[in-house]
């Protein structure tokens, strides 16, 4: 049973349960000033916390679900930290002993000062689970006057370990537009290092491997075409209703119409951002128009948003992915 909002849950049947909490992602920063531009780092991904426990009928669990960092829009604004998700219990000894915490991803930061670097938001940390995985950090961004730079959002933690970090946007040459890729649960988004580059995203099974080559699926042999076709034809958001956090098959984001579980989304210098697959981070966006950066999805951090045009007020960084709690009866 999924809990997208905080609740008290009374156990109906005595048995073994798998409890999962995902912390919310932080939102990326916003730097939308006039032609001198700015840099905005990405938000961090939320932590992942999982525990298998024997519960007794009438145990009561208190489930707190963290909220994602809100989108920000301004000539210069830091993002917003996500919220922590937690599980505590009352009743049996096993329930009382529950003390699970999946920490939030932290906010991205902005700067409009030449040569100044802003680190991405840190990923959340988890405690109290059999598995405690840290979220990926947001991508850093360094500003050069007359350029716009945005780091990608970090992915949430997962059963496979620490989430991939968002790609950074740190220019080694002349000022320009740079957008780091979002992190996937399998690895990091691409770091961009030159003007007018948008980095690819991490996938569920690996990091981005080149500027335009995103990370692969965790499912061996599933190429981009096969995966997209499978998803479109089956219209699945979750790839498995059973143990869904282990069936993360997404490649780096393809399209907002195709959910990519565990995959991040690429950075963009030509269009609005798109939402990442669940647990994935979204890419940075530096498109010079009134558009919105992509949002994280279930625990993913959102990318930064920067421009060299005055579009503040009508343009937003992405929202950090919300937290979530999942309770499965497994025996």
């Amino acid at each position, binding site marked *: 049973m999924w809990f997208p909002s*905080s609740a*008290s849950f009374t156990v109906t049947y005595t048995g073994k349960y798998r409890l999962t909490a995902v912390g*919310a992602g932080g939102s990326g920063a916003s730097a939308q000033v006039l032609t001198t531009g700015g840099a905005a780092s990405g938000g961090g991904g939320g932590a992942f916390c999982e525990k298998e426990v024997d519960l007794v009928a009438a145990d009561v669990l*208190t489930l*707190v*679900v*963290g*909220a994602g960092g*809100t989108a920000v829009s301004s000539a210069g604004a830091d993002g917003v*930290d996500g919220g922590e998700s937690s599980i505590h219990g009352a009743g049996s000894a096993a329930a009382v002993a529950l003390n699970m915490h999946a920490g939030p991803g932290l906010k991205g930061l902005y700067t409009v000062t030449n040569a100044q670097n802003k680190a991405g938001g840190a990923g959340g940390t988890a405690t109290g689970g059999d598995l405690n995985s840290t979220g990926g950090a947001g991508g850093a961004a360094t500003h050069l006057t007359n350029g716009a730079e945005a780091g990608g959002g970090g992915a949430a933690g997962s059963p496979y370990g620490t989430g991939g970090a968002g790609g950074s946007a740190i220019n080694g040459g002349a000022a320009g537009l740079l957008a780091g890729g979002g992190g996937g649960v399998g690895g990091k988004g691409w770091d961009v290092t030159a003007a007018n580059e948008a980095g690819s995203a991490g996938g569920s099974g690996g990091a981005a491997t080149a500027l335009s080559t995103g990370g692969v699926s965790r499912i061996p042999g599933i190429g981009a075409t096969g995966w997209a076709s499978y998803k479109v034809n089956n219209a699945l958001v979750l790839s498995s209703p059973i143990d869904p956090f282990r069936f993360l098959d997404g490649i780096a984001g393809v399209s907002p119409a195709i959910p990519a579980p565990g995959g991040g989304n690429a950075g963009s210098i030509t269009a609005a951002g798109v939402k990442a697959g669940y647990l994935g981070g979204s890419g940075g966006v530096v498109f010079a128009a009134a558009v919105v950066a992509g949002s994280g999805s279930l625990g993913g951090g959102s990318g930064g948003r920067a421009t060299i045009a005055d579009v503040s007020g009508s343009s937003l960084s992405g929202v950090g992915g919300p937290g979530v709690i999942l309770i499965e009866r497994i025996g």
Partner: protein
Amino acid sequence: MIYEILDDKGDVVNRIIAEQAFVDEKYPGMYRDVTPAPELAAPVELAIDPLKAINDKLDQVIADISKMQTDVSKIAVK
């Protein structure tokens, strides 16, 4: 709804998704609602003269009357 949970000093200690009944029960008096307001569409200024349609209609009626008067005078001459 999104709520910020506060400590004794009023500092934010968490940011959660919940219904008000939940925060009332678990954090009485120690929260604030920070749900973003829905974005309203920007007002659009249209170049509409509210009297234009009436004036156009009046012009048409006057033109019709003038034409009828002309036709009547032609009939009278015959």
